[in-house]
């Protein structure tokens, strides 16, 4: 599918600066220019970055971590999501700083290199499988070679290889009439046959990132800088698509996810406009636990149950998926089939203005 290709080939130009505390040689090394795949993860870039700075590093053991504008970047969040979330006005190239020492253990969970990232990915996959099928047997029974092939395909951005392996997993897809309508190259299997995926009710695994902003702004570049994770709430709740609903749009999906922000239910009303809501209490929502498998059937696994509630009285300023801002009328099933990450999760970034 065309959309999937775009999604997989997506890459963000990064300009990586070495933090001045790490510089031991004069003159300080120039920033490294790296293309980071959107579906990849930051720690995987270590091997590409090290050559640029290896000569200037102080002696000792390196633990790589990144930050943007002082915010340490969470390594288990795909690069594309981080970019969409933290740069309201996309900054190309994205200037981030790399550190090799002084890992902020109080903010970030430890990362021991490529293996940690791989296990994090596999866990997300299991979580997605559970949400979609009710069990994660298919992921757990994957052979060692399949697992490594899958991971390698993700690391290298090899869509064909990925599709080969992931088709064996037989994860459900969502019946989407619009598949054929929107692409000339139809009948290309999105990975599995419809027979196995005939579910009346499909659950879409979703990771929702909501950035709450107090100040008012009209333009994105006027948005004040994000300086801490506390402003971002994380919701991990699947959305159910009912088959009968021929037209379940993104808007409907968002309504189920963030009901507080949609008090008057008219489709047209919910364009990005200023709707005043009441004051909100923001609950900091920090660590995303992607390792937690969903136990309750049909329930949402929240780290902080109360953190799911965004303040009522907010106005959605921006919705970003895979770097684009889709219309709210877009069928959600299309979104669920085409814009998901390799771990079968749909990452959605939402900017919400909260009234003071």
């Amino acid at each position, binding site marked *: 599918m065309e959309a999937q290709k775009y999604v997989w080939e997506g890459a963000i130009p990064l300009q990586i600066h070495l933090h001045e505390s790490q510089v031991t040689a004069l003159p300080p090394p120039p920033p490294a220019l790296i*293309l980071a795949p959107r579906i990849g993860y930051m720690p995987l870039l270590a091997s590409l970055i090290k050559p640029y700075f290896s000569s200037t590093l102080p002696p000792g053991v390196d633990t790589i971590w990144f930050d943007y504008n002082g915010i340490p970047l969470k390594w288990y969040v795909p690069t594309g999501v981080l970019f969409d979330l933290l740069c309201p006005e996309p900054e190309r190239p994205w200037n981030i700083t790399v550190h090799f020492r002084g890992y902020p253990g109080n903010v970030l969970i430890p990362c021991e290199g490529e293996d940690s990232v791989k296990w994090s990915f596999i866990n997300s996959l299991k979580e997605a499988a559970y949400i979609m099928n009710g069990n994660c047997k298919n992921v757990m029974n994957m052979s060692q070679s399949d697992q490594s092939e899958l991971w390698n395909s993700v690391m290298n951005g090899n869509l064909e290889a990925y599709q080969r392996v992931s088709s064996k997993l037989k994860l459900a897809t969502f019946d989407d009439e619009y598949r054929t309508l*929107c692409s000339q190259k139809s009948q290309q299997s999105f990975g599995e046959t419809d027979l196995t995926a005939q579910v009346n009710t499909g659950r879409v695994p979703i990771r929702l990132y909501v950035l709450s902003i107090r100040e008012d702004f009209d333009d994105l570049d006027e948005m004040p800088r994000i300086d801490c994770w506390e402003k971002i709430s994380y919701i991990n709740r699947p959305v159910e698509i009912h088959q009968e609903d021929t037209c379940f*749009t993104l808007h409907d999906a968002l309504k189920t996810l963030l009901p507080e922000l949609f008090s008057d239910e008219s489709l047209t009303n919910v364009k990005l406009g200023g709707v005043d809501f009441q004051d909100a209490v923001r609950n900091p929502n920090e660590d995303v636990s992607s390792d937690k498998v969903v136990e309750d059937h049909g329930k949402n696994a929240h780290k902080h149950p109360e953190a799911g509630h965004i303040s009522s009285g907010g106005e959605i300023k921006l919705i970003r998926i*895979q770097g*684009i801002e889709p*219309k709210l009328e877009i069928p959600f099933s*299309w979104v669920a089939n085409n814009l998901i990450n390799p771990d079968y999760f749909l990452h959605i970034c939402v900017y919400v203005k909260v009234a003071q």
Partner: protein
Amino acid sequence: MSQEEVAIEAIKHALKALKKRHLVEEGAHAPAYIALSRPIISQGSEWKEKAENLEMELQQCYKAQSRLSEQLVVEVAESRALKASLQEKETALAEMEKEMTQTRDECSRLKADLEEKVKALELVLGEREELKAQLEQLTIRATNAEAENKKLVDRWMLQKMQDAERLNEANALYEDMIERLKASGLEKLAREQVDGIVRRSEEGAEFFSESTVPSVCKHRINAHEGGCASIMFENSSGRLISGGQDRSIKLWDSTTGSLSQSLFGCLGSVLDLAITHDNRSIIAASSSNNLFVWDVNSGRVRHTLTGHTDKVCAVDVSKVSSRHVVSAAYDRTIKVWDLQKGFCTNTIMFHSNCNALCFSTDGLTICSGHVDGNLRLWDIQTGKLLSEVAAHSLAITSVSLSRNGNVVLTSSRDNSHNLFDIRSLEVCGTFRTTGSRVASNWSRSCISPDDNQIAAGSADGSIYIWSISKGDIVSTLKEHTAPVLCCAWSGLGKPLASTDKNGVVCTWT
């Protein structure tokens, strides 16, 4: 617009947005980035490769160096060793040379020595030859001399032997002569002895007197009250000694029939009498378990021999010494007394009581006659039984020795009298007759001094006389009215005396 159319619009819009993004992001930047990174990457890899290669080379160089240095060490060590051995060899060589010169000198010296020795040897050999020749000669002479020597020795031996033979002959002749002389001497003596003249005045003449056969009663004496059990004559005299029931001993002159002496002191009836060969002491055996020894001249009791525990029924004194007295008592003992010591020196115990006993002539042996009818010979010094013989079937009552001491007369309750050769204990003769009954256990009989006649009393009061040579009764003497207890013959040949139970003593000639 229908919902569908709206949806399709939205999707299209999304796709457009994705395209745009692509153009803006990776589309715009990718080439430049790739271009920029390639050199670095390639460079990096180039450098890496270079570095790796250099490292490998270095390692190899190091290895090579270590190998070379090892070799070097080895070589150095070898060369040092070789140097050292070379040094040694040189010193050894020098030494060898020195030694060699020394040995050469020695060698020359030895050669000189050798020549001298050889010369000397030749000289010596020559001398040896000469000596050998001399030796031969001498040996020949020696052998000759030995041969002569031997011959001479043989001749000498021969001479000696001849001499010895002659001597032997001479000796033999001499011995012969001596023998003949002896023999002729003995013949002469024998002839002299056989035709001997016995002169009556000489001592020992009485040995040759012939005893007469008694036939007439000369005296009849009432000697003792109650009975006279024992009578005897003094040695070689006519004095008669009698001992009786009345505890007295009386001495009579047998020619006159008168009492000459009485001895008192006996505590019991006198059962037997004995007199020493010198006629000085009289010993009486008493029924009071004692023996009394009187001195004849003083008439006093000199010894009392105590020790028996029952009546003493027989006593005899040695004919050789007057020291040893032997007594037999009814306590089954025979005691040997030493009169000088004054006590019993030996006690012989025997199960059968002894009724009569007598000394042998040499005084070393006793003959005893026992109740069991056996005659026994004892050695008085050891007290051992020498020999015994079953003399009679009943108790022996009398044992008396002949004058010559060769035969002993035994009388027994079985009314027979036997003569025994004392050495062989063989019966020489037996005498009995009807009517002759031995009166009591202690009836004594006797032999005549010429050893030819036997006199024995009988219970009917008569006395029978047998001749030993004839073996027959030659006389019967009747006078007594009571059983005859004891007979005694004088050493002079006559008279014969007898006693009976009434105490009457008769003498017969």
